[in-house]
């Protein structure tokens, strides 16, 4: 099972502190790409997305958005993407964006499936196993 550390989007923290995000309540979605993002990317239009035809919902469920003794963490429920009616394009990079934010601002950073990426056949699923301790933490 490929695992990936989160590569941080640099503009994210500024966006968080300038109230572009309410990560406890906003609508979060997953994006997929086969083109390496830049850490300077800030909004969804900076990402070269693949086609999502035949793919199940990319809506992400927030498990918790909270702090403990000053350390904030955003915990997301694992997301299952399933193809129905056709295969997916190949993609390697994935992340989360805020669909509520005016400019669909990117959240946290991105994950890398690894060289070659992944293609899902019709009927096949991909589980995005978000870190149980948080997509990211901020101290």
């Amino acid at each position: 099972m490929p695992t990936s550390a989160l590569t941080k989007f640099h503009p994210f923290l500024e966006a968080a502190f300038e109230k572009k995000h309410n990560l406890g309540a906003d609508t979060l979605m997953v994006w997929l790409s086969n083109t390496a993002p830049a850490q300077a990317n800030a909004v969804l239009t900076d990402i070269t997305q693949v086609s999502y035809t035949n793919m199940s919902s990319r809506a992400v469920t927030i498990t918790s958005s909270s702090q403990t003794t000053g350390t904030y963490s955003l915990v997301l429920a694992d997301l299952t993407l399933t193809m129905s009616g056709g295969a997916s394009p190949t993609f390697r990079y994935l992340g989360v964006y805020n669909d509520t934010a005016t400019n669909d601002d990117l959240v946290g950073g991105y994950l890398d499936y690894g060289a070659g990426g992944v293609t899902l056949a019709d009927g096949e699923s991909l589980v995005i196993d978000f870190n149980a301790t948080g997509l990211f933490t901020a101290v």
Partner: protein
Amino acid sequence: MAFDKASHEKRRDELEGKIAAIRDKSGPLRAKRDKHVQAARAREDELNAEIAKAEKGLADLENERAFLSRALGAKTV
């Protein structure tokens, strides 16, 4: 600018006047903005509470679906 106390006091008074003039202009705009934001946030809070109520238990269902999908051989990342 001369570096003596009187000059410094004069310049400080000038700055206080300029700053006050700017704040006199921006203050009402800030008050108007804050009133608008507070009203919008109050409505947002109401809707967020309704959404949270409607989605109660959803994270557990998502995690269970993911667990079963993994057991059924799904790819993972």
